[in-house]
């Protein structure tokens, strides 16, 4: 439980880890669009290859990528099965009784599942190779042009940082309260869903009260340390694009070229 701040960050040193977080965020964005632009099943091969190349450069074990798919497995199966059975088309592949398996059904099922797999593993590469704090920094910088339309870029990043800082503290506290209540005979483990939800109330109420007290304290402490919003604030971590980032941008252009050029020619 204690390691939750690290999230799923996989801390090794690799060229992908060292990319500017802004580059990675933009690249993932472009990559997601690319996945949707793929015109036919065959063209998923270069996209998958691109993904594997990135994972390899990032020194991510294959098992890490698979693990990111685990929470999606039900959704994946449903997507596949629904598309397979409820599509209709012209080319019969198989008929068992009243059930017909159409070629179009198989194709869409494959397309949708592949898309989902590529999207999820792709975005997991971002979170696996970027420390949460760096990610926050990157998001803040990327969003800061939006300040002209009053988008609270700095505040959003500050909120994410504070959340990352306090999640482990609150989990520890929840753990403590839970043990204290259990010692007094509270039961969090058994009973149906309603009973368990009701058992959580004596946990959540003190947790919320303490979270609000912490928020008040923290606001006071931040003010005492001269915090006055994003205005005039400098940052410890400088973000700078390097040659590596240029290469990364070129690589995604290449991927676009491979996917889209055959269709244009």
């Amino acid at each position, binding site marked *: 439980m*204690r390691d939750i*701040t690290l999230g799923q960050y996989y801390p090794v040193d690799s060229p992908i880890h060292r990319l500017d977080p802004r580059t990675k965020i933009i690249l993932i964005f472009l990559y997601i669009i690319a996945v949707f632009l793929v015109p036919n099943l065959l063209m998923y091969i270069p996209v998958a290859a691109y993904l594997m190349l990135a994972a390899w450069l990032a020194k991510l074990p294959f098992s890490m990528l698979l693990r990111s798919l685990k929470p999606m497995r039900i959704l994946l199966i449903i997507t596949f099965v629904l598309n397979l059975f409820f599509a209709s088309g012209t080319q019969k592949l198989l008929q068992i009784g009243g059930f017909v398996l159409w070629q179009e059904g198989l194709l869409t099922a494959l397309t949708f599942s592949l898309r989902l797999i590529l999207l999820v593993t792709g975005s997991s590469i971002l979170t696996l190779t970027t420390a*949460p*704090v760096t990610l926050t920094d990157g998001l803040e910088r990327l969003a800061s042009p939006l300040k002209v339309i009053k988008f609270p870029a700095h505040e959003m990043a500050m909120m994410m*940082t*504070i959340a*990352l*800082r306090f999640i*482990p*503290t609150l989990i*520890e506290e929840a753990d403590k309260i839970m043990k204290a209540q259990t010692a007094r005979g509270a039961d969090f483990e058994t009973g149906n869903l309603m009973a368990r939800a009701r058992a959580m109330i004596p946990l959540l109420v003190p947790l919320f009260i303490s979270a609000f*007290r*912490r928020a008040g*304290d*923290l606001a*006071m*402490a*931040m*003010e*005492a*340390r*001269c*915090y*006055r919003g994003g205005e*005039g*604030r*400098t*940052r*410890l*971590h*400088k973000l700078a694009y390097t040659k590596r980032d240029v290469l990364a941008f070129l690589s995604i252009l290449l991927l676009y070229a491979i996917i889209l050029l055959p269709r244009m020619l």
Partner: protein
Amino acid sequence: MNGVPHIQVTDLTYRYEPDAPKALDTINLSVPRGQFVAILGHNGSGKSTLAKLLNGLFLPTEGTVHISGMDTRDDDKIWDIRRTAGMVFQNPDNQLVATEVYDDVAFGLENIGVPPDDMPPRIDEALALTGMSEFKNRAPHLLSGGQKQRVAIAGILAMHPEALILDEATAMLDPQGRKEVLQTVRRLNEEQGITVVWITHFMEEATHAQRVLVMDHGQIAMDGSPREIFAQVDRLRDLRLDVPPMTQLARLLKERDIDIAPDVLNVEELVKEVKRLCPLCLKN
């Protein structure tokens, strides 16, 4: 700046609400640069309120607070005041902002707009002064309470403060953590000449100060050296305070006809007395 008291409080009155009772009542206080002042007082006597007025977190209802000659009500000076009069609070968990020690120490520097290239030396220096260098990449929730408080102090030191205000910074710590924090602050006071305002409920800690203030009902009830203050046992009892444990011990011994100085303040002084009384007790 010479000649100007570091902290100058004049006829300070503070109310939390316009019709609330006075939390502070006509306080006058002058603290010279480099002094170590301890503030004592029972619960609700106004210690925290005074602390928050000293760096402009609260503004006076009446009267004035000047830090190095700067008025806390002056909008242009408020950030200078907060930078030079740093504040450490009671709960070690609720004052660290970043997910790593190093980044947390940087927080204040970022706020006052220090150029990024100037930050690392200042952060390293502050971590070294508090003895926290080896923990610079730790997540705050993996530190002990005393270590968290030292990180909080480092975060202030990096901003090159002239005064430290600690509001019961040791209250939630174990004895080891309390010792760490007090030692750190005493060293900063002695070596860096930083003015210290040390608010505490532990009499023993106050014995290490140069000056002790006792607050009662929003007023300063007593003001003097630790020895002067802790000699007045009855007055302290009226103000719902005890004398430090070692003083208590020395007084009990005195009552049983042992020829010990009754104004012993802390363990170090008691040891000296014991050595004087009983040379045979000495090892070797």
